[in-house]
């Protein structure tokens, strides 16, 4: 799309200067993004266990499409556990087991006969630690998921998707001259954006992110947050974060998880619009947590 680059040039000329100028960013996301209809996720009576340990109890929530939903709560309350259950990643832990239902696009992803591999190609994941494939180039990292799902993809088409994904992750200008170099040569923040590019390249409906910026410096963190605000026009996003500012900046909805005492399962206390959770939550526990009075 040549018009896109032209637009960037115009914007660059006008652009106000901030530390973020070091990093690629869309200055007017609303104008650049066409909203695509992503998927709603309906979680009903979800319980998650590790062997005999009941880790998460009775979660009921509706994760709205084309929005970013933040999961907050103290350490160990089961945010990661819950997040991983959404694309059945929890099954990689031998003892983990989930009961209940998660319906996406009218299909219960826990129903018998549903292939977890299929689920994960529709619900992508970005992890706390950047994890590009160390033996692959930048290009191959982005193309990795595409090669899985569609082996007979043409080179030209692949090139196009790789570029689009890297642009989507605000990484294109930084890596376009070194697509064939190892992904490990990038900085931590660049690696995390590479992982985001890799995840969005397969066009999932949902993107799960587990503390995606916690290993990054403040500028890279802001870059990721901007990216999230932009990506939610195309995907449904669920993001775990310990950073309250991040939740307020990047999310539309917030779900607060809590654990009454250790040994007890974690539960979702409430979920609401982010402004409401942070200004006027329904429950006292939420109020205490978001205002820093917990413990």
């Amino acid at each position, binding site marked *: 799309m040549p018009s896109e680059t032209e637009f960037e040039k115009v914007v660059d000329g006008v652009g106000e200067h901030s530390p973020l100028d070091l990093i690629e960013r869309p200055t007017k996301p609303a104008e650049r993004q066409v909203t695509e209809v992503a998927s709603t996720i309906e979680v009903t009576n979800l319980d998650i266990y590790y062997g005999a340990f009941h880790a998460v109890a009775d979660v009921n929530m509706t994760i709205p499409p084309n929005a970013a939903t933040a999961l907050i709560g103290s350490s160990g309350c089961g945010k990661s556990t819950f997040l991983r259950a959404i*694309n059945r*990643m929890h099954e*990689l832990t031998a003892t983990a087991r989930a009961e209940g239902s998660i319906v996406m696009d009218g299909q219960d992803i826990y129903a018998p006969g549903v292939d977890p*591999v*299929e689920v*994960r*190609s*529709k619900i*992508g*994941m970005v*992890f706390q*630690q950047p*994890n*590009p*494939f*160390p*033996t*692959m180039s930048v290009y191959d990292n982005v193309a*990795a*998921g595409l090669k*899985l*799902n569609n082996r007979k993809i043409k080179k030209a088409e692949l090139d196009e998707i790789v570029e689009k994904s890297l642009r989507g992750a605000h990484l294109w200008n930084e890596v376009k001259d070194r697509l064939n170099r*190892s992904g*490990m040569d990038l900085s931590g923040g660049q690696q995390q954006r590479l*992982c985001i590019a*890799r*995840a969005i390249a*397969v066009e999932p409906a949902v993107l799960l992110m587990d503390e995606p910026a916690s290993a990054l410096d403040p500028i890279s963190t802001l870059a990721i947050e901007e990216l999230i605000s932009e990506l939610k026009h195309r995907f449904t996003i669920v993001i775990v974060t310990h950073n309250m500012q991040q939740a307020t900046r990047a999310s539309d909805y917030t779900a607060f998880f809590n654990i009454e005492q250790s040994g007890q399962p974690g539960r979702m206390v409430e979920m609401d619009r982010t402004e409401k959770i942070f200004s006027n939550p329904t429950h006292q526990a939420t109020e205490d947590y978001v205002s820093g009075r917990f413990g």
Partner: protein
Amino acid sequence: MSSTEASTPPSQRGDRVFGALAKGAGITILVVLAGVALFLLVEAFPALTAPASELPDGKSLIAYVAPLAFGTLLSATLAILIAVPLALAVAIFISFYAPKRIAGTLGSIVDLLAAIPSVVYGLWGIVVLGPAIVPLHEWLADHLSFIPFFAGQASATGRTMLTVGLVLAVMILPIITAISREVFLQTPRKLTEAAYGLGATKWEMIRMTVIPFGRPALISASMLGLGRALGETMAVTMILSAAGVVSFKLLTATNPSSIAANIALQFPESSGIDVNVLIASGLVLFAITLVVNMTARWVIARSNLVNA
């Protein structure tokens, strides 16, 4: 810095002691290696300088050693070609596919293969494996004889280069499997999860993360196996009735021997210049092994560079 030497903290003293020990061990190995090389050179020297007429069969040293070196390389290469894919498959199966209960047992069985003395492998090759694969020999000779390796009259006893290759492959299987398993299990979880998170199947995950991660180790392990196959004596000695030829035909009864097997066979009855000739052949084996190992180091260093 010399002023601080008197007050070296104990922790640094420990470092120094350990450093000195490690250095000592390293030097010892080099000294032993140099000693062996020197011994081989000195003892081989008479054979290197003697005229052909004084050597066994009146052949020149090169004419004598060449078929043996050829047989050594052929049998070891064959063994590696069979063992590496097999070991890879076994290691992947045990690490990722076998049910937990079976995996442990299977792993131990493979490890146990390493504890069997090579005489037993030799016997097994003659008595069990050789006869058992005579039909395979015949089938290959009938249908694939256009491939030079499978040309010629198939042996009726199964005491062939192919059998030797298979026996050697079984012998080096455990070391390659064990190292591969060890390394595969160390594949960082964040990489395997990255692959699964993209919607990879288990096999795709293995191809994307486990094998690239384990590749340098797999190469090292293969080279260790190759080293063992090159130097293997008993199994080859017992299975092949050597004919001092250079032949790529794997299925016939006429086969080259290997250097190690030939030394084992000839040494008891040799004296004088014949002993020097055998030692000269040993020198060649030493050189081959050295070259193989150095090549392996080089390959690994290069693949690490690519990975870094």
